[in-house]
Every structure is written in C-alpha cells, then in structure tokens.
C-alpha cells in the first residue's frame, strides 16, 4: 500500500516536471515575439535585442525554464542605463538586500498578469475559491442524484425505468453546456423571469447570489450527471447478476433489503473512481459554464487570459489544472484500493 503510494507520488512529481517544461516551452520558445509585441512591428532588430537583454530573454531556453521553475537563481545584472541592479527577482520598492535569489513557481512566484495588471498570485486564489463554490454545489447535487438514478436503473436491467433513465442520460450528456445554457436561459430567464441570466456573484446586480448560482449549477449537473449515472448503472447491473444476490433473494429477503443491504455497497466500488474524477472536470470543465454566465471563476480567468495572450496566467492556471487532475487520479486509485478488500490485501 505504502509502496504503491510512493510509486504514484514519484510518478506525480515526474509528470508535473514534464508538464511544467511543456507549458513553459509552449510559450517561451520564441521570445523574439515578445519583443515584437512590446515594441511593435516597426521596431529595429537592435531595439528588440536590447529589450530582450533587459528582460533577460536572450539566455538559453533551459536556463530560463529552471529560473521560472525556481531551481536556478533568477538572473541578476546591473542596468546599463542607470547602474541599478536589475534581474528576474527584482521588484520595484523592494531593497536590493531583501531581493530573493530564487523566484520561480516552486517559491510561489507565478509571475505578473498582463491582463489583470497584478501578480497572478493576487487573482488566482480568489478565482479558485469562486470555482470551488460552484463545483462543490454541483458536486453536492450531482453525486446523490446520479447514485439514486443509477441504482434505480441498474436494479432491474432492461425494465422500462432502466431504458428511460439510460436514454435520458445519453441525451443530457450530449447537450453541449453552452447549448443547455441557451435552452435553460430562454425558459427560466426570458420566459418565466424566475432567474438571472448571469452570475457575477455581485449582490448589487439585483438578484440574490443564491439565485444567481441556480442556472450554472443546473448546467454543470445536467452535462455531468448522465455519465456518472451510466457508470453507477453498469456497476449495479453487474452486481445484480452475482450469486450472493440470488442467494439473498432466494432466502426470502425483500427486494428493498437486497438492494439496500447487499447490492448498493458493492455497486459503489467501481463508480467511486469515476465520481472522484468528476472533481477534475468541475475545476476545469467549468470554463464553458463560467463563460456562459459571466461567473468570475478559475475557468473564466484561464479563458480570458488565453484570449488576451496573458502567458503568465495561462501557465499558472494550466499547471494548477494538471496538478488537480493528477492528484484526483491518485486519490481515486487509493480510494478504490481501500474500498476493495481483494486489492487491499493482495
């Protein structure tokens, strides 16, 4: 068990290193574009070279990667213009003796967002908090509902109820989030006027925040529910064919007791991982929902920064998204092992 955990942890570190290198390389391989972007297309090569030197962009890509990661000390130099020390870690207003030697991702320095005009650190945590609110609400609705529907469908395979739930879950999963946003908004916002069409989490907009959250949560649940329902159903169908279920029925237990006391627990082992992996979807997959409802979350931050070529924010957000995804995978594997004695003890 411990060996397994350590092995997975090592693979997590390896994956994150490769991913960070990829995320860095995707944008920083051609730093010449930065100079052109800052100085405009009519700048001379000489001007561009000088800016690149000032920004420390003229050094090899691997050096810049390790500095960005925080395992090499940030570059430092003396400004040619006024003799003051400059460098990656130098910040205006911070005296030279307090300037840290290392300032990379590992030190928690995520860079400066060109879109929000503030350090990425000052924006990313608030946005993550907002997304967490949305995701936990959706999760809290989705998990019990999907288990209930999945169990009801799977306990009698091929029944009318089973077919109805199965087909309905195929259909709901097939509606793109922006389309269900359009459909729900035209019913509840335009038609009935019960709910607001945007969720800026700002009570001044005239709608209580609780009502603002209804549609975003509904769209996430609608899109995600069907997949989990089908996983729970498949597992339940499988469990219902086992000999111990037949024994339980033959010894005269009520169907209700067979389901609740014998089938339910065993049917939950396989979908456990699937349910945990939905956390992953909730953190990043909400990009679309957040865009539809103007929700100030992590996904919208990622999208907005990508659309305005804000490299530092996109890099930080992508790294974080991958970290969440890899961690939920490990948690899923561990949970699966704990729930399943056959794997736990072998």
């Amino acid at each position, binding site marked *: 068990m411990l060996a397994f955990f350590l092995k997975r942890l090592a*693979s997590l570190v390896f*994956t994150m290193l*490769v*991913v960070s290198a*990829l*995320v860095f390389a*995707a*944008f920083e391989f051609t730093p010449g574009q930065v100079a052109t972007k800052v100085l405009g297309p009519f700048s001379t090569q000489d001007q561009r070279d000088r800016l690149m030197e000032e920004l420390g962009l003229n050094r090899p890509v691997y050096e810049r990667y390790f500095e960005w990661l925080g395992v090499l000390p940030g570059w430092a130099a003396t400004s040619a213009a006024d003799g003051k020390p400059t460098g990656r870690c130098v910040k205006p207003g911070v005296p030279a003796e307090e300037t840290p030697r290392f300032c990379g991702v590992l030190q928690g320095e995520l860079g400066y967002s060109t879109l929000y005009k503030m350090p990425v650190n000052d924006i990313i945590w608030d946005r993550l908090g907002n997304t967490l609110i949305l995701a936990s609400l959706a999760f809290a609705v989705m998990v019990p509902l999907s288990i209930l529907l999945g169990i009801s469908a799977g306990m009698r395979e091929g029944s009318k109820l089973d077919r109805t739930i*199965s*087909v309905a879950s*195929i*259909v709901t*999963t*097939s*509606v*793109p*989030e*922006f*389309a269900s946003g*359009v*459909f729900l*908004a*035209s019913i509840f*916002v*335009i038609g009935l006027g019960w709910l607001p*069409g945007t969720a800026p989490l700002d009570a001044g907009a005239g709608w209580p925040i609780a009502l603002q959250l209804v549609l975003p949560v509904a769209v996430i649940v609608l899109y995600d529910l069907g997949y989990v329902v089908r996983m729970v159903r498949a597992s339940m169908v499988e469990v219902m064919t086992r000999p111990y279920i037949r024994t339980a029925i033959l010894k005269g237990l009520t169907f209700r007791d067979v389901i609740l006391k014998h089938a339910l627990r065993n049917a939950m082992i396989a979908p456990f991982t699937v349910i945990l992996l939905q956390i*992953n*979807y909730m*953190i*990043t*997959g909400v*990009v*679309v929902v957040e*865009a*539809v409802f103007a929700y100030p979350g992590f*996904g919208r931050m*990622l*999208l907005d920064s*990508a*659309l305005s*070529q804000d490299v530092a924010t*996109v890099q930080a*957000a*992508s790294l974080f*998204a*991958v970290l969440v*995804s*890899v961690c939920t*995978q490990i948690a899923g594997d561990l949970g699966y092992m704990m729930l399943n004695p056959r794997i736990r003890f072998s």
Partner: protein
Amino acid sequence: MAMSETAGSISRTWARVRLLRESPVGMIGALLVVFWVLVAIFAPIISPFDPNSNDMDALIEPGPNAIHWFGTDMQGRDILARVIWGSRTVLTVAPVAVAVAYAIGSLLGLLAGYYRGWVDNLINRVSDIILSFPAIVLYIIVIMRFGPSALNIILAVIFIASPQIMRIVRGMTLELREREYIAAAKMRGESTFYIMFVEILPNARGPLIVDACLRMGYTTIAIGVLGFLGLGLPPPDPDWGGMVKDSYALMSIFPHMSLFPAAAITSLVVGFSLLADGMREISMRD
C-alpha cells in the same frame, strides 16, 4: 473468392443496418445523423441565402418571418443559411480529426499491445503526460499558441484523442494477441504488420466503431465549445458555437439568434450518441 468475400461482407453490413431497426433509439440517432449529413452535402442547393450576405432591410425586424424562416442575425445574415452551412464545417472537421486520430491511436495501440516491453512503456508514458492535461486546458493552450483555424482545431483534437484511442486499442490487442488464430498466423510465417492489421485490428472493430461514433459526438461538442469560447474558426464562415457566442449577449431581446444554432448542434450530438448506443446494444447481442 475475393468477390464472394466482398459480397459476404456487404451482406453482413446490411444485416447490421437492418438490425439497427430493432433498436428504436439507435434508429432515431441514425436518422438525425443522416439528416445532417444530407444537409451538409446539399447545402448549396437547399440554403435559401448566401450565409455571409447581409440583408440590411432585415435588421429592423430580425425575428423569424416568411422570407427568413429562422430570422437574421445582428448583421442581417440569414440564420437558416448559416445553420445549414455550419453543418458543413462540423461534418468536415470532426470526421477528418477523428479518422486521423484513429489512424495514429490504432497504430500506437497495436504497437504497444503487441510488442509490450519498452515500446509499451514509452508509448504509455507519453500518453499519460498528454492525458494528465484536462482536455479543455490543452485546447486552450494549443489554440492560443498556434492561432484559431480549422487545421489547428483538427490538430488539437488529434493530439487529445489519439492517446485515448491508443489505450482502447492497446487493451484489446493485449487480449487478442493470445488467441489461437494469432498463433496460427505466426506459424504460417505472416509478417507482424499482417498480424496487427489483418488479424488483430478487424477483430477489435466492434467496440472501436461504437467508440468512434461517440467520439464524433464529443468532437462536435469540442468544435462547438471552441467556437463559443472565441477560439474557433475565424469569421465570417459560420460555425454553430460561434453563432451562439455572437448572439448570446442579446438572448433576452432576440432569443432566436442563439436558439437555432444551439438546437442544431444538440440534435447532431444527440444523434451520434443515440446511434452509438444502438450499435453497442446490437453488438452485445451477437
């Protein structure tokens, strides 16, 4: 010999199509998909207007009317025409992307599952890295870095789907390579290439066809989402996601501008999903 074999496989295919009739759900899916394929093929004939031409008179009253059945958008462009032509975009980009992803994913899956050892390790490691990115993050990075275009969307889909397909094919290859007919083929002295593509791959086709159909649906969603997020095809050519993006802010005044393209993409994806379900049901029967 070859003739009768071809005839046999055609009649088997027909038998499968006929079987689909027994699954009403699958049939509805098939009809929806066929409907959109026909719309895409005959777009130049059935489209009432040029999708990019502007009817300035329609700007005053953009709602659905006798001339513009689905109404017009904020630039006076006919929405029916744009929905019709938008099906062409989706039904070219998605099949091309899925087909290439299948070619790459199958090849890698066959290699990994057949040779195992370091080949398997290497392919799996690289796939694990790609799959550790949430798909939408990868789409955003790729499109942001290389710019929005049909080709880049196709490349992004291939990049994301190939490792997933690789895993499916690898799993099936690991199972199939132990079968007796593979041992027989080896004994006959068939090449590895022959064994992989003639003996293993065709025998794995059942689940792969179902997956391909589902994947067409996912890819359609992905194309729509990219369009909606502003990372899709550059204007003015119509794509459904982009049409919703352009009109969503005006939903409360002109809901028709968003509703029609949203309904179009939904019906196509539902079609693919139901068709996949019908085929899965049939393949489990035999």
